[in-house]
């Protein structure tokens, strides 16, 4: 079984996670730039973060046989902090990089005017750079937030078919599907969305344009949720081809819209020697 996790924050994960993900079938992932838990106070700390998503993290992933790509953006939460908004001006020089397969995560957190501005500006940047967009839908006031998101996308230069609406659930899937965008579901331990509810959504809605991710980060989360959904799908009577579509072909098709996916990984030499990552650094 081949798995593509289209949304996971590996910066917050250990090498044990990479190893377990590979063993579960994960061969490719996309790491969206997002909030780090601790607020940042200057654009420079975003730039170091972006550099890590374009340098060190793909190197780490390759050592475990996993292709790593990223999406870059000013996230909605920090779009509200005037100390961080200059990141928007620097994004064009990052969005041309080979490893960037979308603009994201963008979207709404608290639905403020500053978030409106950042979302519209970054949808335009995606259109300008030939990139699709990964759009986070808010955890609070979700349905209203989704509808406002869809309106902003419709008014933007970016085709809804080049947008992935993420963190959907039973209450938002219908509106999201009608918008013509791709449909992302984040599967978490305990909260928000679990693998059995995901299977029920797939039964009701079908597999078209559906992507499933672990959204694992520094919070309570599980980087193997993609595999658990695949197993739950098989147990519920879906076939291998359905699983492959949701967990591989759909994410490949969506991020492939960038023209920048490189799914074959050449593991660096260091994999064969006792290497610095396995040793926990020098």
């Amino acid at each position: 079984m081949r798995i593509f996790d289209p949304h996971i924050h590996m910066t917050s994960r250990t090498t044990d996670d990479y190893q377990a993900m590979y063993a579960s079938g994960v061969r490719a992932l996309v790491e969206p730039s997002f909030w780090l838990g601790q607020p940042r106070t200057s654009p420079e700390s975003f730039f170091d973060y972006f550099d890590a998503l374009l340098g060190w993290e793909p190197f780490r992933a390759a050592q475990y046989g996993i292709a790593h790509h990223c999406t870059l953006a000013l996230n909605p939460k920090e779009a509200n902090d005037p100390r961080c908004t200059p990141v928007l001006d620097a994004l064009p020089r990052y969005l041309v990089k080979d490893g960037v397969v979308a603009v994201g995560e963008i979207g709404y957190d608290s639905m403020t005017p500053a978030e409106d501005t950042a979302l519209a500006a970054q949808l335009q940047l995606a259109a300008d750079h030939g990139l699709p967009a990964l759009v986070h839908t808010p955890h609070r006031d979700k349905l209203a937030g989704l509808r406002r998101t869809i309106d902003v996308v419709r008014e933007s230069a970016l085709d809804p078919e080049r947008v992935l609406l993420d963190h959907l659930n039973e209450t938002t899937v219908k509106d999201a599907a009608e918008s013509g965008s791709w449909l992302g579901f984040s599967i978490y331990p305990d909260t928000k969305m679990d693998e059995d509810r995901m299977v029920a959504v797939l039964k009701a809605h079908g597999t078209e344009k559906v992507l499933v991710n672990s959204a694992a980060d520094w919070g309570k989360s599980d980087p193997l949720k993609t595999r658990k959904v695949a197993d739950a799908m098989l147990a519920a009577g879906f076939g291998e081809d359905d699983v492959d579509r949701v967990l591989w072909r759909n994410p490949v098709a969506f991020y492939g819209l960038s023209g920048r996916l490189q799914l074959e990984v050449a593991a660096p030499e260091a994999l064969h020697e006792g290497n610095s990552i396995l040793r926990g650094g020098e």
Partner: protein
Amino acid sequence: MISNPPAPTREDLAPRLDAAAGAWLDAALAEAAAALDENEGDNVAVAPWELRFAAAGRHCGQEHADPVRTLLLQEARAGLTTLTRLYHQGTAAERRAVLLALPLRVTGPGALPLVEDALRTNDTRLVAAAVGPYAAAHLDPHSWRHAILKCLFTGVPVAAVDGLDRRAHGDAELARMLADFAAERTAAGRPVPADLYHALHLTGEES
């Protein structure tokens, strides 16, 4: 004193690129040739050829990205200011290309901060590119010896180290560091990399 590596040429690359990649490269080289001297220009807009430098991997194939990027740096006559900016604003692949081009583009020691930055990383692609002819010519003895150890630690083959035989020969301090590292590995019950003995032999200072 730098043993310049042969610079890649458009002619070397031509048979390896498909038509679309070849056309892309020709357009990129034309933009690079039109690049302003690095002391001119408004310093605000990104030069078109620099966008090409970033995008080289997806247009020409990752396996051709290093020579394509080197060619662009040559054609644009990139000097220290431009190379430093491209390195600091680059992905790991772009940083690697800047490091590989240093012996072709920089005559003095001015680009050593980039080499030292790369040697501080644990990314073997950058470490391997940092120990080329530019480092052989300019890196001070202490940093150079640590670069050799870094290669052994991170699994970069010492064959990547330019001028190893010339600089290692007669280096008693390097021989001591290598012997100590071998002893530490042996004490830990871990294998000593074969490359270590090779480097130690090149010092001619085996005890």
